[in-house]
């Protein structure tokens, strides 16, 4: 009697895979990466290469020698993505050994200690970044001014980021710093100082829209973050907390286009593992991030708070996962 393969239904699969999703996110990051290579030249290439290489090696070595897993997981490309995202969150001219430490912390502490992909409560790339920000505050806030391949990798000409000036303006009410800000167009296209991958809002938005269209992420998290930040900035303007030289509309746009906001909203906060499952969970998560980042930017010690905002909301995810999706046939309360 011939026997055939048996297994429970369903017998077909969508063809989706972890690797495919990671690959699509990496693809979506490429426009922003190209922009940053154009802005920062060699620094962008070297920093990203080191970060990715060290992330992948760390995961491989921990899997093989510490966890003694039979199956390697680097093929799912999540370590590559973490490496790329970590590099996006570093200044392009940072010393190579700091990148190495950041990558080891991101994968080693942020991801593998919890059991690898899917188990980590915090976004690994941000764990690496925040570790570096606290351990090497000077190097982590030295931003090369963009001069393309003329930007020196080491000892580059440096300057402050737009968020630093915005902070000055809010703190002192001094409108003279407004002249130091890049134009809104430059902010949009990314001709300004900042972390390696965060500067070109245009490229990040293109990549983010691609991810939404490809159904890799949903709109809930990015839209709720952006809407909350815009509303917070608008309220700041309407309640008369801005100098006269800065209109509310401009302040809203600067808030959205500077710092890690677009990078965070589309690529960091939407990390599958560390964001909520249900639609309402995602919206609350996004609103929380938007609110916290603006609180830090307005009253905190750091000019930028995207990393902290995302990590704080990461910690709330188990709680947010208690929110049930709308059940079929359930009366709306």
């Amino acid at each position, binding site marked *: 009697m011939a026997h055939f393969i*048996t297994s429970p239904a*369903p*017998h077909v699969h969508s063809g989706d*895979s972890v690797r495919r999703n990671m690959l699509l996110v990496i693809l979506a990051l490429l426009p922003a990466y190209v922009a940053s290579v154009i802005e920062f030249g060699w620094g962008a290439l070297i920093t990203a290469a080191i970060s990715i290489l060290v992330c992948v090696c760390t995961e491989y070595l921990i899997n093989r020698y510490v966890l003694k897993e039979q199956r390697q997981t680097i093929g799912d490309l999540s370590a590559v993505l973490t490496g790329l995202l970590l590099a996006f969150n570093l200044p392009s001219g940072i010393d190579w050994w700091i990148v190495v430490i950041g990558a080891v912390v991101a994968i080693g502490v942020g991801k593998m200690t919890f059991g690898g992909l*899917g188990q980590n409560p915090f976004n690994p790339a941000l764990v690496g970044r925040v570790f570096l920000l606290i351990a090497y505050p000077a190097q982590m806030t030295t931003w090369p001014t963009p001069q393309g391949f003329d930007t020196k990798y080491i000892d580059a000409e440096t300057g402050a980021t737009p968020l630093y000036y915005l902070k000055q303006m809010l703190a002192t009410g001094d409108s003279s710093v407004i002249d130091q800000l890049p134009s809104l167009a430059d902010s949009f296209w990314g001709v300004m100082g900042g972390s390696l991958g965060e500067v070109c809002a245009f490229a990040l938005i293109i990549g983010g829209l691609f991810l939404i269209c490809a159904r890799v992420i949903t709109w809930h998290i990015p839209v709720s973050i952006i809407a909350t930040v815009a509303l917070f900035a608008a309220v700041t303007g309407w309640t008369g907390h801005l100098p006269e030289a800065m209109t509310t509309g401009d302040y809203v746009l600067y808030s959205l286009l500077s710092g890690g906001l677009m990078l965070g909203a589309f690529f960091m906060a939407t990390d599958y593992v560390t964001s909520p*499952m249900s639609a309402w969970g995602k919206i609350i998560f996004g609103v929380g991030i938007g609110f916290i980042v603006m609180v830090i930017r307005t009253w905190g010690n750091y000019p930028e708070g995207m990393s902290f905002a995302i990590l704080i909301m990461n910690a709330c995810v188990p709680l947010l996962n208690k929110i049930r*999706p709308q059940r079929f046939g359930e009366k709306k309360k």
Partner: protein
Amino acid sequence: MRTFKIGGVHPRDNKQFSAHQPITECPLPKQAIIPLVQHIGAPAQAVVKEGDKVKVGELLAKAGGFVSANICSPVSGTVTKIGDWTDAWGAPGQAIFIDVEGDEWLPEINRKPDLERQCTLEPQAIIDKIAAAGIVGLGGACFPTHVKLLPPPGKKAEVLIVNGVECEPYLTCDHQLMLEHGEEIMIGIKILMKALGVQRAIIGIENNKKDAIEHMQKLAQSNLGIEVLPLKLRYPQGGEKQLIDACINRQVPSGALPIEVGAVVDNVATIFAVYEAVQKNKPLISRVMTVTGKYVAKPGNYRVRFGTPIDEVIAMAGGVPAETGKIIGGGPMMGRAMDHTEGMPANKRLSGLLFLSETESVRPEQENCIRCGKCVQACPMGLEPYLLSRLSELEMYDELEKHDIMDCIDCGCCVFTCPAHRRLLDGIRPGKAKVGAILRERAAAAKK
């Protein structure tokens, strides 16, 4: 275009292999095997004994309870054995074995192909005829049809919803039936409307069957109260609750039957059987089965008498392809993979045979859950499959009940969509069975 509101997935429909293949009669077998369980509910009780001569249409076994169904003989010949039998999945049961002799039908069965349009019977007489004919839902669940037509006291049906969706990939038997027997289905709908006392019927058809939509629309023009509703392609639209949501925008509450929102749902194949039973006195003795798959030599739609060994049906379609790894009874989303084909007969439950090659048959290795939430987005019942699966593994039955595991309809959307290839349903099914048992125990204890 309308569809249901929550979740759902888009599997490739792969209907091209057997679509538009005319329904072909499968020849009579030498021996027929008639299982006594071919429906949901109590097994039927045999009323014949070994050595009895039977004709086509004669009652072999009568319904064994309120939710149960008659089984009529699909062949003529001699009953040789009533006894143990094992199905293609290894489950034991009882079956009646008949040696086939000729093809002699009961005289009251009208075998002429002419349409019988007039039905003067009273509603109760119609329902009695349907019950006598042993008709069950041929869409997959096999719920006895006459039971659906008797709403519980205080409930009233408002609309008959006709399921022409056939959302399972690969299957084309309902599609072909609508194309070839649309008029009979229309008369069947009229009969059911009369039995239920409703003025309105909606035929839901997914728009990957444009010719069936057009054909049924043309026929519906001359039938007051019957409308054809094209539906956007989306699985599991043929699920009862999803179809009601898509057609009349009402959501059947958790644990309730469609009658709660005034709807009764019947599949087109079931309705064709109703026509034959009421107008032609012909009980349910055969059905159309789709035999299909990429490597099948002659994929098609075959009308098969129940009891015919499926090996003979497979032979009609050109035999088991050499590449075969898996044979599925039904469609690829909810069908069951057979261990073997020997001794397995066609029956009311078997809507098709799907052959998958070895490479199509192997389930990819599971990876860690990456908490992407795609299973939550895909679940048409608004459940959290990742959570249910985990809670089932941990045997946390109270939590499972609180998270509405009993609402799971087993559609497979979560497993289909999971990028980490998690076998979520492998965990959820046993959890649901256990919670169901706990609930029944509790209900029994409450009665005492």
